[in-house]
């Protein structure tokens, strides 16, 4: 009994010393990285930096920022952050407490959390990818005319397919996603009027297992080109296993499924992030709703693989040039939705605002939940 009491007190002292030591060391670092010349930037990701898709493309933008600004910035990242308010806010606030003065949130569902943070931390600038909320002082958003490269990828799929059935693994029946599906379908129909597009919604942006399963169900229906609006390369891998073809998304992912990869509509996030962050650091940033195009180089089509027919390559290059010149409009009438209603009249075309009101699928497209 006595012995154990002695041991106990020794242990207690050890614990207390350990605690003191830990807090003392904590004190030395008290500056929290608030060095005047260094700007700390926090990036919040929904997935893993090496997911082979969406988040990896985002992270390429981050590394470009790091390369461009070098010593002048300190980059913080948080990956696998769920679209749940507590989690997102915790990540943002932890970054701010580490001295971050710019927070970049890269998933739609981070929007409300970022909006709250923007109110609570007026001295921090928040940039949000794909959202539609902003304010006048410290909260802006950015996105791109993904409908342009989507349309181009549709041309390739329309000419490549043998069954005239295209599959599309999509996240949610939400406007951003519907725009992409419609653009892809319009591109395919422009070169192959018989083509049909089947869509499966997985109701998640980032669910690698389900993405692949959804692709497999489309393949079983006879689709022989799979396109996607989800984060992983799962659908491409499913297509390769079946011996057919795939259109990726987000980044050039040809290594994930080299036997299936045709091309991919991709983002060049650096084209927005580098100049914008330069403005924020320089104090000249005014919140905006950026919308990058093919012309700006913010959205693009990945280099077409050898599996793409020559005919398609020529056609894509022709239309891509028109897009870069600003003369090609993806949503040009007459367009009907899949209920037969005319949604864009003959001779008219949708501008950005019109495109972002889309809540329908065009003729020749059918959608269902997984």
């Amino acid at each position: 009994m006595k012995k154990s009491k002695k041991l106990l007190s020794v242990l207690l002292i050890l614990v207390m010393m350990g605690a003191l030591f830990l807090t003392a060391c904590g004190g030395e670092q008290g500056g929290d990285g608030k060095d005047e010349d260094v700007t700390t930037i926090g990036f919040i990701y929904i997935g893993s930096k090496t997911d082979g898709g969406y988040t990896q493309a985002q992270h390429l933008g981050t590394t470009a920022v790091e390369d461009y600004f070098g010593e002048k910035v300190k980059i913080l990242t948080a990956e696998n952050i769920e679209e749940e308010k507590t989690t997102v806010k915790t990540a943002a606030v932890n970054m701010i407490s580490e001295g971050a003065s710019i927070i970049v949130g890269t998933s739609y569902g981070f929007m409300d959390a970022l909006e709250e943070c923007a109110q609570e931390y007026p001295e921090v600038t928040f940039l949000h990818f794909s959202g539609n909320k902003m304010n006048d002082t410290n909260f802006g958003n950015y996105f791109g005319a993904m409908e342009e490269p989507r349309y181009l990828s549709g041309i390739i799929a329309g000419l490549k397919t043998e069954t005239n059935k295209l599959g599309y693994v999509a996240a949610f029946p939400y406007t951003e996603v519907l725009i992409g599906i419609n653009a892809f379908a319009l591109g395919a129909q422009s070169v192959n009027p018989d083509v049909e597009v089947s869509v499966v919604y997985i109701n998640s942006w980032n669910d690698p297992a389900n993405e692949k399963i959804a692709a497999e169900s489309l393949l079983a229906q006879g689709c022989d080109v799979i396109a996607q609006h989800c984060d992983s390369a799962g659908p491409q891998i499913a297509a390769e296993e079946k011996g057919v073809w795939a259109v990726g998304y987000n980044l050039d992912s040809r290594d994930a499924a080299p036997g299936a990869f045709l091309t991919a509509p991709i983002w060049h996030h650096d084209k927005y992030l580098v100049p914008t962050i330069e403005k924020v650091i320089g104090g000249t940033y005014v919140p905006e709703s950026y919308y990058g195009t093919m012309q700006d180089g913010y959205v693009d089509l990945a280099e077409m693989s050898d599996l793409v027919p020559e005919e398609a390559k020529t056609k894509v290059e022709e239309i891509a040039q028109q897009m870069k010149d600003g003369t090609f409009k993806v949503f040009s009438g007459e367009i009907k939705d899949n209920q037969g209603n005319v949604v864009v009249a003959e001779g008219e075309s949708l501008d950005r605002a019109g495109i972002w009101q889309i809540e329908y699928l065009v003729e020749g497209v059918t959608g269902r939940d997984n």
Partner: protein
Amino acid sequence: MKFITISRRDDIPRNRIVLIRILAILLSIAFAGIVIMALGYNPLAVFRQMIKGALGGKIRLQQTALKAVPLIITTMGIIVAFKMKFWNIGGEGQIMMGAMAASFVALNYSHLPKTLLLILMALASIVAGGLWAFIPAIFKAKLGTNETIFTLMLNYIAIKFVTFLQYGPWKDPTSQGYPKVPDFTAKAILPNVFGVHIGWIIAIILVIVTYIFINHTKKGYEVTVVGESVDTARYAGINIQSVIIVTMLISGGMCGLTGMIQASAIEKTLTASLSANYGFSAITTAWLSRLNAVAAFFVCICFAILLQGGASLQITMNIPAAVADMIQGIILFFVLGSEFFLQYKVGFRKRLAKEEA
């Protein structure tokens, strides 16, 4: 032939208990340190960052508090049920149903004055959480069903039901097809007190109430007796069925209230991920506190420090989030493991044989 024998012990002096617990914590820290080192990080820096990330500065303290509040309230709910040896694994579902009911009030009665609206939301959440726990309770009381499986399964029903609402009838018509429930109006949001929503005051009150209920009321005593021995309780003339049902209404009610607080103060709407595993974490914290409400209060704060410190690790030290989870796992493994050694004596056959001889 059994080489290892395990027997119950009930004769450990108090300081020995403290000693074993401290040893467990030290061992877990040492072991976690080795793992961190094996992964190529400096363990001292990692632990320092965890503590700093949870307690260093006002913002971080607030974040820790925000995680502690739902954990404390849910733990109180779990403790009440566990005291009766009713294994309520259904905290998640009760939180979701509470949040759902509170959201129903918030979305449909937003014309009411703020205080009244918030009180109605809280009451609705308590009733809904209580009813969700009442279902397994009545089945257990009347038919003797297994409450562990029953409450566990009800979690998934509740979560899927909220998912259904989010994707279907309650979907925000202005969200352009994105499946989310409309945001609450400002009136349906709990006010802040000292930078953290008022939930922390509710949590402290509930800790005191739970402590008094279990230790100083007749009903609380009955709960304990039913938990210790149903036969004794019956012999003493306690109405067992009524005790089970009332206890579970209280347990589920508190979990439901957590749902209201999270929906109102944090999410400001209803989402299917709102329960954020608090219902499961609370089982751990309830055990660690040995079903003592006051101890649970401190255990929950420690747990929140682990959560918040862990979340800050990947941002400040670029450590994958999984490592933080692993550290938590190691610490829990050792601490919970030590409980085993406090309750059982492990001996080797040879030595026991000698003693017998």
